[in-house]
């Protein structure tokens, strides 16, 4: 930093204050709306607090209770399963779509529209749509199945082990962010690199596998981060369909957090919030390392 500063010109040094001045609004917003709530969450996660009366310091009790709670452990297990599905199937589907759109086959524009449109529908709306799709009486899925098997009756959102997969269906196909990020990187691949590979006799598969995919490493890593962190924070899709049931089959941490608030256990709720925060950081670090996102690609 010191060396950098000494290398800067007088004009650049004069401009620093403008840089800081323009950063000020963002900094203020961060301090007011992000940092202060985060600090409050951290501090109150060590307290017993009903959200109204004065918090009472209880040390690590909230965290100990959390890790002794079966519901929390099931939520962690669900999160792990959903994270694996998100990082593989969800991101894989998004990457596949990016490659399809990049190749511009016949009808690619139509495919792009069909793929993009559902992604502008909110998660909550999708949850409600799927609630109808999976309804045993009037849902399209079961009515279709009953054409072949008339006695078929399953309430997908309310029976084990289907509920987990029914909830998964509400988000797994909607990978537009992954597609856009990867497509952006694909379009930025220098034409010379592709040409050189072709001249060397690379087949389309080899080109994809050994040239394009590695060059999209950062974009795929970003997709994995977005996808898994969305699973950590996933709430509407579950609340509006299974509410975490049957039993705890589809429970996750945000649901525990909200339930704790309705039981006036704000300290416990904030301990859940802290776990989500730490999990987010771990995911960020793990994906950064796995995808070597800080290394230069070219």
């Amino acid at each position, binding site marked *: 930093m010191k060396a950098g500063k000494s290398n800067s010109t007088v004009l650049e040094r004069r401009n620093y204050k403008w840089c800081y001045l323009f950063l000020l609004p963002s900094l203020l917003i961060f301090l007011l709306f992000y940092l202060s709530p985060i600090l409050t969450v951290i501090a109150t996660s060590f307290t017993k607090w009903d959200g109204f009366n004065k918090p009472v310091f209880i040390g690590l009790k909230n965290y100990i209770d959390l890790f002794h709670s079966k519901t929390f452990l099931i939520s962690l297990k669900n999160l792990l399963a959903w994270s694996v599905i998100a990082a593989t199937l969800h991101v894989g589907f998004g990457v596949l779509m990016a490659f399809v759109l990049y190749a511009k086959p016949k009808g690619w524009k139509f495919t792009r529209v069909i793929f993009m449109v559902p992604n502008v529908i909110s998660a909550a709306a999708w949850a409600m749509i799927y609630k109808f799709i999976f309804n045993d009486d009037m849902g399209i899925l079961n009515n279709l199945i009953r054409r072949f098997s008339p006695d078929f009756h399953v309430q997908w959102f309310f029976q084990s082990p289907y509920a987990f997969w029914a909830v998964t269906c509400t988000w797994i196909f909607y990978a537009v962010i992954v597609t856009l990020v990867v497509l952006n990187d694909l379009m930025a691949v220098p034409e010379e690199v592709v040409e050189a590979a072709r001249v060397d006799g690379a087949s389309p598969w080899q080109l994809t596998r050994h040239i394009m995919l590695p060059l999209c490493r950062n974009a795929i890593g970003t997709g994995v981060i977005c996808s898994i962190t969305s699973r950590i924070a996933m709430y509407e899709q579950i609340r509006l369909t299974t509410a975490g049931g049957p039993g705890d089959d589809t429970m996750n941490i945000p649901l525990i957090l909200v339930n704790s608030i*309705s039981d006036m256990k704000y300290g416990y709720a904030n301990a859940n919030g802290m776990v989500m925060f730490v999990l987010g950081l771990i995911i960020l670090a793990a994906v950064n390392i796995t995808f070597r996102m800080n290394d230069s690609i070219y």
Partner: protein
Amino acid sequence: MKRKLAGIMAAVMAAATVISGCSGGNSKTTAPGAGNSENASGKEIQMTFPTYLAGENVGAVFFLPEVERFNQKYAGKYKIVIEEVPQAQYAEKIKQLAQQNKLPAIVHAPGSGGIDLQWFKSVVLANGMAYDLSEFANANPEVKNNWIDDSMDYCTVDGKLICKPLSVLKPVGLYYNNTMYKPEKAVKDMKLDEFMESIGDNKFAFQTAENAWTSGLLLTALIANQEGGETYLAQYVDDKLYDYTDAKIVSAISILQKLLQSNASANTIGAAYADAANAFMSKSAAIICNGSWMASDFDEESADKWSNGFTGEEVTSDIYPGNFAIANPRVFGEFWIANTASDEEKELAKAFFAFRDSKEEIEQLVLTEGGVAPKLDYSDEFLKKQAENRILSQLAESMDENTRYTASIFDVMPASVADTEFGKLLPKLADGTLTPEEFCSQLTQKAEEAKN
């Protein structure tokens, strides 16, 4: 210098724009509790009243016209503006407003709208947020005389009357389709075993989604019918029940499981209230447990809700086997007034309470939603009208001096267990994944987690 000044201006403007963009801007909406009244100048006092008794809520059928009647009676003096809040979000909204010290003048009492007793005690009572209605009660003996003694006693905390007590008790029973279920005698006169035998293959309109209301009511009746069950429930109303492994509960859950497996309508798994009501009003189920407020669904005006040949004429109302009805007068009444309300708002709120508990309004309420007003001398006109409403008069007549009133299972469950966890566990009880013992153990675990 000019450029420097322009730069500073630009940065300041950018900061101001961003910050003002986040502040929500100017709003002319008057916050609840702020008191947009103009009484001092002799103008109309107006108050916004957030309530879930609006929109599609069954309680709206009586409540909204009542507010309208109040506004008409006091036109130019008082006006209540209804703010519709979905029932599922009411408690959360009130809790947030309490945190911000912006409670509306009139608030629904705990036990209604999802507001739990625990919160009411540890936040509202502990911080003296409820206005003392003692003076109002003494100044309006004609209103006070209509209040149920038990309710008034319960609403009096440390010598202060902190809620408007109940004047009407709405005992919850059941409805059955008399073309499908034909009991040899009234259900209330049966023992539990007789009732179980009498239902044969008939189906119940159960719920296993949302708060599983209709299933919870039947479970309450099953527990009440166990030896000492009624007393057991009553003793946990105040402090909540955190252990569901008692033999009475396990036994009742065992019966519920059998009914869920052999006498449940086809749509039971995943059924919300609307599904349960639909099962009953389409003859897919012969019996539904619900309160007297459902009676209006069986009037001819609600025929659009009927299907598959169902008519309201086929419905008979009764209470539960063992002569049990679900009602709990030992609750914090109906409404309370926030201490943060302005004097004008308090004046309006008290005027509304006096209006609501007038003889005419109480009689109108009983005619619309059913129930009994034990302290009221009914008018002849009321009795005549009540006799015309077959279903409500049946329900009223089914209760006699031997009827025992029991608290509901929802009254003893912690908030999150009553609102979601109980309903979430029911599908596993129904499909046999959980034995009654395991179900009770998991319910206990959920209740323990909800404990502070």
